[in-house]
């Protein structure tokens, strides 16, 4: 049973994770600055850090297809917190980690959650990491999220990260760094929509230090109204490796997007590619959907939903 639940919190948990009951698996639910409930399992041990700054999450070697939920919800105006969660993923473990943060701010003060997640993947470990961010509430206080993610990948480990921010977050600065040993593989899929006067900045630095390492970092963004996005991804090849980054964006209204490619090859066998495309919705896409009977606004919505799908 979760403590201090309200309908708003339950709704936000469902939006973040698709559920509001986590029994049956490992989880920690954090609401308004404190833990509402926590459960460890045989394979996944969740422990609060002694200084109260966050959690240590230990995933046992060899765990197969397990899942852990660690959603964060804020519904009080004026909360500002920084939380450190460290994930230790054992050799050969295979786990899905569902994180994410929702801020409902109906008051005048800013609410802010800065989550620092650090991952240590042992040899051959596989992680699928899913992180959703959104904001709601009609208060004048801003909803601010500044996630920091550090990933340390041992030989042959695989990390897939899916990061989504669709609406309601006024200001976000995301920093993701990764270091890859031999044959490690990192896949990042970021989807971002900003509107109003929102600002979203994403920095990546991915260092491929071992032979056969590979990274694929892809961001899809839509900037509407007066919003601003910056995608700054740097790949560093220090060994024979392959790296690809892509920023694919749609701008609307007075939206602004800055894509900063960064490739650094320090080894003759490092193959690095960067792609970026920014533009408005193609006119022929709108026209095609209109010939199916959609209005221009409906067509726009379908194209954007598909793009961010």
């Amino acid at each position: 049973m979760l403590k201090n639940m309200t309908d708003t919190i339950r709704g936000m948990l469902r939006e973040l994770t698709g559920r509001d009951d986590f029994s049956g698996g490992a989880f920690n639910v954090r609401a308004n600055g404190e833990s509402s409930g926590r459960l460890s399992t045989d394979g996944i041990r969740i422990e609060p850090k002694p200084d109260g700054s966050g959690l240590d999450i230990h995933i046992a070697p060899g765990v197969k297809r397990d899942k852990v939920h660690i959603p964060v919800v804020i519904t009080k105006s004026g909360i500002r917190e920084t939380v450190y969660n460290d994930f230790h993923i054992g050799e050969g473990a295979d786990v899905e980690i569902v994180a994410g943060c929702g801020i409902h701010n109906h008051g005048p003060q800013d609410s802010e959650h800065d989550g620092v997640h650090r991952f240590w993947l042992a040899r051959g470990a596989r992680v699928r990491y899913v992180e959703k961010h959104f904001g709601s509430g009609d208060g004048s206080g801003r909803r601010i999220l500044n996630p920091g993610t550090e990933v340390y990948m041992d030989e042959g480990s695989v990390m897939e990260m899916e990061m989504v921010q669709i609406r309601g977050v006024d200001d976000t600065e995301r920093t993701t760094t990764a270091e890859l040993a031999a044959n490690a593989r990192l896949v990042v899929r970021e989807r971002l929509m900003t509107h109003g006067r929102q600002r979203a900045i994403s920095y990546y630095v991915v260092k491929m230090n071992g032979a056969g390492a590979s990274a694929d970092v892809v961001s899809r963004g839509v900037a509407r109204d007066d919003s601003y996005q910056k995608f700054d991804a740097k790949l560093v090849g220090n060994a024979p490796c392959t790296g690809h980054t892509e920023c694919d964006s749609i701008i609307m209204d007075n939206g602004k997007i800055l894509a900063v490619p960064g490739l650094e090859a320090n080894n003759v066998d490092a193959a690095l590619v960067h792609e970026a495309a920014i533009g408005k919705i193609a006119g022929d896409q709108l026209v095609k959907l209109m010939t199916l009977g959609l209005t221009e606004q409906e067509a726009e919505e379908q194209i954007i939903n598909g793009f961010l799908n």
Partner: protein
Amino acid sequence: MSILEMEHVGFKVPSEQGEREIIRDVNLALEPGRLVVVTGPNGGGKSTLARLIAGIAIPTAGRILLDGEDITGKSVTERARAGIGFAFQQPVRFKGIRVLDLLRLAAGKELSVSDACEYLSAVGLCARDYIHREVNASLSGGELKRIEIATVFARGVRLSIFDEPEAGIDLWSFQNLIRLFKEMRGNIPGGTIMIISHQERLMDIADEIVVMKDGGVDRHGPKDDILPGLAGSPLAIGGCCKNGQGRLTKC
């Protein structure tokens, strides 16, 4: 009453010399329940004519009537809802929109997966393999073209326009396509199909043939009157084409 009437329709675009007339004084009436093939040389104005009917381009002269109602000032959306379907010569790709999504938008309702599959099978695509694929750059030209045809088929409207449906489609599927057009005509009572094509075998199933040339209607009449004069002539395949050595020849 005609399904579609074009009265003195003209279309001019600005050019370096001032203006260029792409469609000139077109008068054309399409009757219910007919299959009409529009043919003619490349650049003759066939696609532009279709775009004018669909509302993608607006005539600079004349009127267009659908079921007797003037639609010249109506938008693409309004015309689509009034019963005009249009398969593009060059279909559009969408990142993230799946074939199933597109078919649902075309049908205008929550199409079941098995209904959607039927439309794909009708254009010769193994439905299971395609239904969840994105309509993006990963589809081949021929696959995309067939999906485009399936969306218009799924709309089931009274006036369906296909711009060169045979382009990029292999021979085996082509037989299928002919069967599909015949079937479509039978399925929608009073429905009219307009196919822009250079293919004699498509002209062969037509009730009427329209020949467009230099932006105007050159000839229009029953197939049996028009086709004999076209067969084997350069018009039937359109101007000239490349021979094996890459030289331009009449063919």
